[in-house]
């Protein structure tokens, strides 16, 4: 017996603990099941009894959602009504989104107005997207969407294709969606972003046999760039051409981009164009030789020109810098002062190199060039951070476009005037054609001649310490190159720019695809011009060690007789015996002119270098 006591105590203890445990379990369970059972005793419905336990919310009790019943007796008498169901207490994120949803804000739709079968809601009873379409079209009958490629794919079970919610948001539908007329900019940006979200996704594109780079190609066009820089008001977003709901492949005769509809399609924004305007390619791949041969070869040619020109002149610049720097170092070490600094008396006499008219033209050229670069390049590199700042400086792409055209007109006027002056130089009054060839290839002409070739070879040898520096006349070969580069640039940039100015009118001259070529030429040539001016020209005339940081002659117009002798010895020899040298003598420039020239010149150089930095940054990092 004595041994039996402890065993009995243990069994009693065991029973007590088990009972206590089961008791707590029952108490813990009671609110859920107990309450549910109590609810069902009055709210007896097949939905609650049979379907709800199997539904996605089946683990919850009635009172998890229908809160606020404090007094069961009052409730059963129809007095104490439960609080409104707050789905957001669990679905917090959705509730936060839905609070901004048009359907709630303006129409006061609540969760169960769409999720009507909430008590029998099964998880993924159907394909989700098909279910969404079914739900939305209950109220929004949309025959156009139902006939579209997207709908067809969704209904075939493709979960990649766009259902209503992919564009309009599921719980975040915004108000501008229904009134495109009222919020065109917001709507265009919003929807284009949604199109891009899927169509730029490589994995999705691959699964569906689409081109994942199509968005990138669009972003390389004028439409895409203006949209990308954040002022999408005046350019086509995706839906402007592809329409909103009835999006179909271009082979489909009902499609807005079917060849038979293109005139009408482009005509929604553009007007007054010839039918071949629609040959314009909205998202071409200029690297595709087979599909876009004209664009491909233009790209190859422009890249070749860019690389060739820059390689030659950059090498030229580096060698030149090496030579002068070494030379200067040698002279400094030996204590030899440059001849120009030793000038005395007659040697200090100022000689005019640039007339006031030429200087004014160069200042105008600088202003025009910087305006063009600062309005054009933000668009070229629309996704760089500095582009947004620059375009903001012009208060938007539209305004920048106006300044770009204004500056272009100024540049065209300057070049036309120079062409006129050149003709007058070649055919002076009273002489006509007599002596034309002599003037054309003479020392005062800017036309390259045999001596330039000799000078170039001479300079190359001098760079490599293999000879003396060649003796120059009025114009050196690199100055002649600068001069002709502007003319070539005007041909390439100017003609393409004029074509793009009013593209609708251009279509009467040329088919639409030429506009694609023109954009490419305009953009690449602009890059060449900016890089050339900001590196080669800046160095040749200003940053070269014996002129650093700038040569003010283009602003003050004069240099000393000693400078003339040293820099242009052949010109000096030509002039010294005649009376012309006398007529070229000028007083020393005044302080105001010097200060103004230095300020404007240095500011321009600095601005050019900053822009160069931005361009180089964009070339490598975007």
């Amino acid at each position: 017996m004595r041994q039996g006591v402890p065993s009995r105590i243990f069994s009693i203890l065991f029973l007590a603990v088990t009972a206590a445990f089961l008791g707590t379990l029952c108490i813990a369970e009671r609110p859920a099941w107990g309450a549910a059972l109590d609810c069902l005793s009055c709210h007896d419905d097949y939905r609650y009894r049979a379907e709800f336990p199997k539904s996605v919310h089946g683990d919850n009790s009635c009172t998890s959602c229908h809160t606020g019943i404090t007094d069961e007796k009052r409730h059963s008498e129809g007095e104490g009504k439960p609080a409104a169901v707050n789905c957001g207490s669990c679905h917090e994120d959705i509730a936060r989104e839905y609070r901004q949803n048009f359907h709630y804000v303006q129409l006061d739709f609540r969760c169960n107005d769409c999720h009507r079968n909430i008590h029998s809601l099964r998880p993924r009873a159907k394909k989700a997207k098909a279910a969404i379409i079914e739900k939305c079209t209950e109220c929004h009958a949309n025959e156009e969407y139902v006939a579209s490629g997207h709908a067809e794919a969704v209904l075939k079970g493709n979960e990649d294709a766009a259902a209503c919610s992919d564009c309009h948001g599921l719980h975040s539908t915004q108000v501008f969606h229904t009134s495109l007329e009222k919020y065109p900019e917001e709507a265009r940006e919003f929807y284009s972003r949604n199109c891009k979200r899927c169509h730029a996704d490589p994995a999705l594109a691959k699964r569906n046999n689409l081109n994942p780079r199509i968005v990138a190609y669009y972003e390389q066009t004028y439409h895409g760039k203006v949209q990308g820089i954040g002022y999408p008001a005046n350019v086509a977003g995706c839906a402007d051409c592809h329409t909103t709901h009835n999006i179909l492949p271009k082979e489909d005769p009902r499609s807005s981009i079917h060849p038979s509809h293109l005139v009408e399609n482009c005509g929604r924004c553009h007007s007054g164009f010839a039918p071949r305007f629609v040959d314009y390619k909205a998202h071409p791949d200029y690297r595709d030789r087979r599909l876009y041969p004209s664009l491909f070869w233009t790209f190859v040619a422009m890249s070749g020109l860019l690389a060739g020109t820059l390689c030659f002149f950059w090498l030229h610049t580096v060698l030149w810098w090496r030579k002068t720097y070494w030379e200067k170092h040698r002279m400094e070490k030996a204590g030899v002062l440059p001849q120009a600094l030793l000038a005395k008396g007659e040697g200090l006499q100022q000689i005019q190199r640039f007339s006031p008219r030429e200087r004014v033209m160069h200042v105008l050229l600088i202003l025009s060039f910087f305006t063009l670069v600062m309005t054009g390049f933000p668009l070229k590199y629309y996704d760089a951070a500095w582009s947004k700042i620059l375009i903001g400086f012009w208060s938007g792409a539209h305004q920048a476009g106006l300044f770009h055209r204004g500056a272009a007109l100024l540049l065209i006027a300057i070049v036309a005037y120079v062409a006129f002056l050149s003709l007058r130089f070649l055919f002076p009054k009273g002489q006509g054609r007599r002596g034309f060839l002599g003037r054309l290839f003479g020392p005062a002409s800017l036309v390259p001649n045999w001596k330039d070739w000799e000078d170039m070879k001479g300079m190359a040898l001098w760079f490599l310490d293999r000879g003396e520096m060649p003796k120059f006349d009025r114009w050196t070969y690199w100055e002649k190159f600068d001069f002709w580069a502007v003319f070539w640039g005007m041909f390439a940039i100017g003609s393409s720019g004029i074509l793009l100015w009013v593209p609708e009118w251009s279509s009467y001259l040329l088919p639409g695809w030429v506009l694609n070529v023109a954009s490419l030429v305009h953009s690449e040539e602009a890059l060449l011009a900016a890089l050339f001016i900001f590196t080669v020209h800046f160095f040749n005339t200003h940053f070269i060690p014996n002129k650093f940081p700038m040569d003010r002659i283009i602003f003050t117009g004069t240099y000393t007789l000693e400078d003339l002798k040293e820099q242009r010895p052949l010109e000096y020899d030509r002039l010294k015996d005649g009376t012309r040298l006398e007529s070229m003598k000028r007083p020393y420039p005044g302080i105001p002119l010097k200060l103004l020239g230095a300020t404007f010149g240095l500011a321009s150089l600095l601005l050019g270098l900053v822009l160069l930095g931005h361009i180089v940054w964009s070339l490598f990092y975007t």
Partner: protein
Amino acid sequence: MRRIFHQGLLWIALLFPPLIFAPAGATEMGAKRVSPQELAQMLAEGKQPLLVNNMGLIECLDHSIAGSICIPSEELEKRIGELPPDKNRLMVFYCESETAQKSCEASDVAVRHGYTAAYVLNGGLPAWKRAGYATVAAERITRRAIASVKAPALRKMLTERAAVLAVDIRSEIAFQKGHIESAINLPMYQLHRRWRELPLNRPLILVDSRGFRTPLAANYLAERGYNVRPLFGGMTSWEAMLAKEKKDAKRK
């Protein structure tokens, strides 16, 4: 010379008062604005502002800020006696457009009748909801699946099926300014009194200004056995359709 000078003065006297007083008058007329946050603070501080919902009764009962009274802006002039006699009572008018148009009209009426502390809820009920504040439903109308009609489809219906009746639920003034031909006018704020006037045997298409009010009206009428659908986008989309057609015709 003197006469010309005097005439000049006369002109100046005639022209200037509107120039000087008009802008000042305009700013004085409208009631002061409160943001949803400020209204919530008023309520929390126990200032007990009288909340006046200026939408139709159906809309007001379906969803309003707790404790509101319902007086449509169109009826306030007639029902001014329902406002408290204390002219200094704090009042906040609100409606359901972001420009707070109806509540501004209503507050103007109140100000004209000498109420000094009339406010307008800035951005209306939409702004209140966006800010995350709750509304209550006194008599909620069940939302059904009622398919809306788009403008081109409505025009097709009106020309092909004589039975279809367009019912314009905008105010009388808006209706008079321009409406769909053959449409009848039954303003939203009268719908709860006059819905029986509508024919039960004809399909109805409801028209409003932007398509924001017809879904509720359609549900209200559907509950009463009508075959009814709202026009998607309201008169805005109808007029946009006409403008687009005009533009296209011009191009051709």
